């Protein structure tokens, strides 16, 4: 049974891609020896321009270059990198524009040049159309006034041409000339109106073609079936025709083909599961403990070309479920809302959220994990990450899964990095072992893969960079692995 919020989800999912309601891309990582914080506003129409802001920190930087790289064409199909400018009065901030001309999985390669040499990194930027715009009133009225002036003046000019242009200087127009002028003016007016009707149909065709090319996310059908004592969640992916996008080309991100989040509409229950594929379009997950209720379903997947998507649906759980976890990376259960500190067993998660969060501006949300009397907690990597965070707006119009490196998918970055024919720095998995098995091939320099966290972040603090897309109340769930179990905290954040 579907809940009434399905309508909202259908609406928001039609406007979103990888990150629901949260288009801005934030990436925190390294470009060679230089730490960078990159914020990208992708275009919402294609061809369009992405706006890029790079915080190069305190390092001495000479120049930063940006270059668009499409998965399909690689760096050989990319133009030369462009120097971007410093933001006036800000020594460490650089801003630039990236032109994305065709639909598809794209990225920006960022090269930083300074005293320590040149270092590069790559950030996925999907080139997809998601916006439908109407004309604002001022432009509309202005164009209508000019349109009326142009029509009426053209009719008058044509009338004057017929009436007077061929008569000798000083002579007056003849009655016949005047009559002809009126007839021709009428014909001109009718012709212009006909042309406008034609132009209107033409415009309608452009609008309809544009809407057909707009991004259509994969659809998800989620259903629960009870077999013996187990409740199994079946997830079917349906591919609506959009460009030449495939649905059966998913690749693993942090080792999982799908990251599934279930959030009940009352805000108490939270689950982060990893369904396994039955085949390329059908996934299943044995549901662990979940209470009866209505749930929002968010499934994150990454295509082989680096395009990440979040699929949405709703789910009605008819009765309380209480089964054992089948995948140790899964979590499901109650996560109560905390004001500042969440205490889970002997782990203390303290949210350090700045007082005034401004929508549209990059912020860093930090969580300090301690144990045994404020000693830095000995956290373990969870799916190759120091921690995971999920941000959802109270009306579910924003949903995003964050990592300390920001909003991007590592699998996306990896896929696009392979299309660059020189050494670049990307985020690698944070493995349990000190010698990470990163399995990079060819182009990516294993030595310069930046790990998720430095020792400092590992021991005490996990920082998530993010841009809240609009003012309002948000919930944030933080997930860490401690003493072999997944521990969660939930906090409320207000953006203005």
């Amino acid at each position, binding site marked *: 049974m579907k809940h009434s919020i399905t309508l909202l989800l259908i609406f928001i999912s039609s406007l979103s891609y990888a990150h629901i309601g949260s288009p801005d891309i934030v990436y925190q990582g390294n470009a060679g020896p230089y730490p960078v914080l990159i914020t990208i506003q992708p275009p919402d129409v*294609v*061809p*369009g321009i992405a706006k890029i802001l790079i915080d190069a920190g305190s390092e001495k930087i000479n120049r930063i270059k940006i270059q668009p790289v499409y998965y*399909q064409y690689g760096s050989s199909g990319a*133009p*030369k990198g462009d120097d971007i400018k410093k933001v006036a009065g800000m020594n460490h901030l650089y801003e630039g524009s990236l032109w994305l*001309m065709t639909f598809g999985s794209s990225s920006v390669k960022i090269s930083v040049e300074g005293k320590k040499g040149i270092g590069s990194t790559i950030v996925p930027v999907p080139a997809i159309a998601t916006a439908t715009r109407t004309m604002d009133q001022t*432009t509309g009225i202005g164009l209508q006034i000019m349109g009326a002036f142009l029509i009426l003046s053209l009719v008058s000019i044509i009338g004057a041409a017929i009436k*007077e242009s061929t008569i*000798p200087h000083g002579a007056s127009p003849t009655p016949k000339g005047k009559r002809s002028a009126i007839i021709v003016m009428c014909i001109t007016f009718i012709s212009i109106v006909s042309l406008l009707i034609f132009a209107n149909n033409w415009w309608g065709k452009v609008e309809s073609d544009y809407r057909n090319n707009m991004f259509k996310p994969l659809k998800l059908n989620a259903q629960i079936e009870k077999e013996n004592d187990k409740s199994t969640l079946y997830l079917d992916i349906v591919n609506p025709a959009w460009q030449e996008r495939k649905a059966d080309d998913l690749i693993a991100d942090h080792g999982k083909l799908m990251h599934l989040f279930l959030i009940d509409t009352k805000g108490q229950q939270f689950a982060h599961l990893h369904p396994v594929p039955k085949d390329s379009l059908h996934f299943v997950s044995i549901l662990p403990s979940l209470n009866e209720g209505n749930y929002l379903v968010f499934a994150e997947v990454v295509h082989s070309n680096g395009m990440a998507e979040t699929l949405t649906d709703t789910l009605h759980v008819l009765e309380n479920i209480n089964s054992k976890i089948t995948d140790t990376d899964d979590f499901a259960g109650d996560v109560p809302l905390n004001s500042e500190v969440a205490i889970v067993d002997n782990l203390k998660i303290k949210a350090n959220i700045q007082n005034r969060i401004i929508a549209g501006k990059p912020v860093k949300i930090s969580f300090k994990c301690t144990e045994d009397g404020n000693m830095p907690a000995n956290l373990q990597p969870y799916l190759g990450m120091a921690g995971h965070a999920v941000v959802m707006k109270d009306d579910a119009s924003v949903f995003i899964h964050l990592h300390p490196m920001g909003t991007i998918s590592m699998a996306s970055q990896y896929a696009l990095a392979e299309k660059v024919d020189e050494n670049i720095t990307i985020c690698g998995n944070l493995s349990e072992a000190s010698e990470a098995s990163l399995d990079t091939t060819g182009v990516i320099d294993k030595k310069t893969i930046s790990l998720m966290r430095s020792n400092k972040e590992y021991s005490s603090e996990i920082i998530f960079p993010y841009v809240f897309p609009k003012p309002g109340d948000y919930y944030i769930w933080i997930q860490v692995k401690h003493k072999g179990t997944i521990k969660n905290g939930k906090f409320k954040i207000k953006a203005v």
Partner: protein
Amino acid sequence: METITPVFELPLRKTEERESPVSLYTIFLIFGVTSIMTGVIWDISWHMSIGRDSLFSPPHLAIYLGGLATGIGSIIKLLIITFSKKVKIRNSSVSFWGMKAPLGTLLCIWGAAAMLTSAPFDDWWHNTYGLDVKILSPPHALLFAGIISILTGTMLTVLSFQNQREQIHPMNNNLLRWSFAYTASLFLIAMYIFIIEHLGRTKMHNPLFYQLVCSVLIMPIAATMRGSRLSYPATTITGFYTIILLIQLWLLPLIPAEPKLAPILNPVKHYVPLLFPLLLIVPGFILDKLYKKISNKNIFIQAVLCGSAFFVSVLIAQWFFSYFLNSPMSHNWVFQTHALPYYKDPNVQHRFEFAKFAGTTSQYYMGFMIALIHAVVFSYLGLKWGNWMRRVQR
């Protein structure tokens, strides 16, 4: 043949005889339309070679500079004439909403206003449907209407002087005659560019190619042939058309340029020029020869003969020439058929093969018949327009 009413008091005063037939205002307009058309050709080449542009890219500046020059110059002209106390000057104009100005001046003002309106419309269009990837879009159509209006206004301004002086001082009018032929050729180039996306060499065996040429291009050729006072007007105008397009064809590839947009499928190192010009000089010459023989006949007969001659000569010239254009022999600096925008894959199949016609065989042949009908109808309209242009005096 129409008679031309002399409008100057005869004989001209000595001072008027020595006056240059081309006024400063006319020179201003000719400079404006040259700037506009240079900008238009440059802009298309820019989009094929560099790609990334802005409101203030050099080709856009050339277009808007030309538009502003003709627009502002014409507004000044309108104000001077409207507020002039000299009856003779006011009498040389037409009336418009209580004001006075020559017809060409009004069209130039209208064209500049249309160009100005297209700018915010185009900006909104880009924000809503994406940046330019096509020549044809509603805001570009409005910009094009503005450019056409300015070109027509400039032609009429030159014509009004030419027509007034022609019978009085036919020996001193060459500058006016050539000025008209030049502006007429720019007009022809503008019409050609409007449909250029359908005029590629692989489409030259397709009826649509001939239907477009026999409507959009025959009309300005027939009209300006009648408007001109040169001995071989259509040959001259189509000759100018050919020379201007050859200049851009040979000059642009000498200027370095590199694509600044992804994806780059063809990494060009210089500007990519527009197509090799159509062989319009062939029907142009035939029309000149033919019209001398049929100038005293009824306009319907003139249209049937001119239209048929145009259709047949274009078909023969372009049909056979296209074999050469699609052959490796034309892949050189003279014909530039190997030139390709940065966003086109040079290894694509069928690049030098004729595009297949989508319809049936009967539709294919019917398409050529329609092109012939177009040629007759549009040459009639062109001749009608040309005959009117011959009489324009204000």
